């Protein structure tokens, strides 16, 4: 059976999600998406300029992609809800990444406000994916509120520091039933692969691709890494056993005692 990520009514083959901010030229976004064959892209509604053909980022996204509007700039739940509704009115679809940042210094998410926004927007029929600081009890609350997936950060946005939150993300992957998508902080393809090996549903990458010298090549590398990590996860038997196999097993003394 084909391995797909199921979110709402969509089956997604490509588990690399791509963010569209920070690129040196909007027109590069199309090349990046085509090269990586990404199926889900995030777009900050604050930057969508529906009045302009040249300036409108949506014009650079292939029609086959699922657009997930993000609420970048929202400082609390009410602002996130307002942005989500505006996005819907602008016909940007009903997938919404809740991003509530009440701390502009480190750009860390506000889980409590994100939860409030999630509760409200799920009721309004949105497919909601909250960006969050990894925390199991909070993730469970997001599940209860009806989130379609949770998006814990690997490290602060734009930091390219990798999966510093590995232990917390691993616990979330083990304990909750909706996809866990690592969002933010992934700087290298190997780190994206590591997220997938852990069992994450997908990885979202923006800065590392957008600010690379060759964003198209970077997108290809990330796409391959995500496939590699996912394949490893599905075939855990290939993993090298961490314990050496001693020629005299530690419980060998029990052999005669059957």
């Amino acid at each position, binding site marked *: 059976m084909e391995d797909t990520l199921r979110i709402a009514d969509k089956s997604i083959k490509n588990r690399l999600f791509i963010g569209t901010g*920070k*690129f*040196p030229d909007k027109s590069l976004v199309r090349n990046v998406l085509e090269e990586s064959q990404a199926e889900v892209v995030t777009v900050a509604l*604050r930057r969508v300029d529906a009045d*302009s053909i040249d*300036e409108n980022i949506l014009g650079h996204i292939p029609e086959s992609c699922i657009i997930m509007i993000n609420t970048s700039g929202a400082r609390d739940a009410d602002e996130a809800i307002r942005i989500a509704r505006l996005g819907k009115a602008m016909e940007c679809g009903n997938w919404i990444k809740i991003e509530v940042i009440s701390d*502009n*210094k*480190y750009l860390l998410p506000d889980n409590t406000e994100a939860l409030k926004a999630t509760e409200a927007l799920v009721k309004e029929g949105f497919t909601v994916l909250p960006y969050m600081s990894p925390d199991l009890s909070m993730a469970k609350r997001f599940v209860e509120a009806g989130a379609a997936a949770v998006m814990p950060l690997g490290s602060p946005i*734009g930091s390219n520091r990798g999966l510093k939150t590995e232990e917390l993300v691993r616990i979330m992957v083990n304990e909750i039933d909706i996809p866990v998508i690592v969002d933010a902080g992934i700087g290298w393809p190997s780190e994206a692969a590591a997220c997938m090996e852990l069992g994450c549903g997908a990885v979202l990458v923006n800065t590392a691709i957008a600010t690379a010298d060759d964003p198209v090549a970077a997108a290809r590398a990330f796409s391959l890494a995500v496939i590699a990590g996912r394949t490893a996860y599905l075939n855990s038997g290939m993993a090298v056993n961490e314990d050496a196999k001693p020629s005299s097993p530690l419980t060998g003394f029990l052999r005669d005692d059957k």
Partner: protein
Amino acid sequence: MSFIDLIKKYESTGLHERLDSVTEKDIEYLLPKDILTPMQFLSLLSPAASDCLEDMAKKAHRITLKNFGKAIQLYTPIYISDYCDNNCIYCGFNVNIKRPRKKLTMDELGREARYIADTGLKHILVLTGSSRSKSPLSYIKECVKVLKRYFSSISIEVYPLTEEEYKELIDEGVDGLTIYQETYNRAIYDNVHIKGFKRDYLFRLDAAERALRKRVRVVNIGALLGLNKWREDGFYVGLHAKYLQDKFPEAEISISVPRIRPQTKEYSPQYEVSDRDITQLILAFRLFLPRIGITLSTRESQELRDNLLPLGITKISADSTTAVGGHTSGNKEEFEQFLISDKRSVPEIRRLLLSRGYQPVLKDWIN
């Protein structure tokens, strides 16, 4: 607590002696650090640090790329009135300068707004001279109502208001405030602001906080470089930005680095600020405050602006005029508040940014 308490704290620490005591070795030690103390920030403003600009620039470029990517936001100012009740000796709107004054009617404002909006810009900065009688809050509010039809983000740069007045403008659709202290040095401040309510140093100093308490989204501060020794004012600007960032972490705080341009025949800057100095200042801001926005206006030359882009700049103005109605009236230079150096149009700036590997961002908010 007000920022004045911090100024008082540092005033007594002998800033200039400290600046002179910094060595290049101190800077080498500081550069690898991710988080800098205010005193370490001061060191980056020292004469010794001016010999380390290349290393500072490399790091500033890296930090900016990570935090802001390859994108630069564009905006333009719109002057709605040049009536002014103040006598500020460096300013072209000075009440003592006898010349015709102008205040846009709503029709004229609409024409000016349409002209700017046609360039594709969505961020506007509304400026007035400081006259509460000629351009009262009600007039500014009326203007905001008109501008809302054309722009997705409206910032104001007007005389300081009370907390309730800021609230009224924010409710009307204003999301950004620009307010420069001009100089943080009290004695110089008193000397250059001879007459008018602008003499109230503290009311101006606390203005940003009053607006932030009413949840304005963006605040942009700065000192008018040339009124005072730039190292001293630069230090207080950075400290002020950090103070606001710490106290209002949800807000976007940014800094401008306006250098005095020829504005009146009677005044020339008391302290020289060279291109090297302004570069050092921008780099020090970026290293001390990695997430701060840094704005560079058309006061600076085309060449300098282009070269400063990768060093930490996040916002630039384009197609600027500092005359009331200057976009559509044609009387650009005669009545300007100060002279513009970089006169490039929006399409020219867009092309330049793209050729330098930067995405011009014309829209970055949704009012």
